[in-house]
């Protein structure tokens, strides 16, 4: 699992790569928490390079969402691979979160 971040307009784009599972979700939560401290509170999770995610990853995103909400921020997702999209649907994340096909649409939504 690897995390890279990029600021675009008023949004922070976080690119998550690799596998997100029970062996690394805590590290993921810590890293994300550091990244969003003091940064823009509009976050796009770009999952184009996320190959695998289990319920531990779902839990990590829900926890991250609580942190972002407490700063009155908002997080959205984009660029889900088919398997990740399926995990989102099974876990109900597709109901609670906005999901976009590409980064541009996600940033536009947050800028509106």
């Amino acid at each position, binding site marked *: 699992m690897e995390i890279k971040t990029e600021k675009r307009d008023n949004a922070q784009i976080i690119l998550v790569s690799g596998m997100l*599972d*029970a*062996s690394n979700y805590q590290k993921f939560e810590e890293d994300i928490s550091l990244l969003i401290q003091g940064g823009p509170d509009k976050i796009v999770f770009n999952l184009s390079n996320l190959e*695998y995610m*289990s*319920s*531990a990853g*779902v*839990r990590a995103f*829900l926890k991250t*969402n*609580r942190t972002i*909400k407490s700063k009155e921020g908002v997080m959205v997702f984009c660029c889900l691979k*088919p*398997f990740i999209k*399926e*995990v989102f649907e*099974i*876990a*109900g*994340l597709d*109901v*609670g*979160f906005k999901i976009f096909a590409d980064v541009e649409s996600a940033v536009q939504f947050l800028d509106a």
Partner: protein
Amino acid sequence: MSSTYTLATNASLKEISTIAEFITSSLTCSGVMEEIIFAIELAVDEITNNIMMYAYPAGEGTMKIMIDVSGTDISIEIRDQGKEFNPLLFPPPDISSNSDERKIGGLGIHMVRSIMDKVNYERRDGQNILKLNKSLSGTKP
């Protein structure tokens, strides 16, 4: 015609990638489609994590994963010798509620039930035995 693959391993987070590789290589050998391999990997990941947390809460134990692929379906049996633990007794999680308020317990087993066609639990000879079944001709992804 059917093929059977078996892996005996420690119930440890360190083995997650070993287990994933075992599933991928076994099912690839049997010509199973990639999206089904991903789904099976996820189901076994969730079950083995439950074993680590609830069957062996005090530390490591061992577990055995058997995969049987026939022309029409995939059967998986996962055994451990830990504390009696039936994951099917988890109440279903509330996945419809607001995403930042919902409780998240039981999500793993909910995902397993969604992916697989059949999930059965049995306690026998001091072992937890979980059997998963996925039809290769079904409509589920």
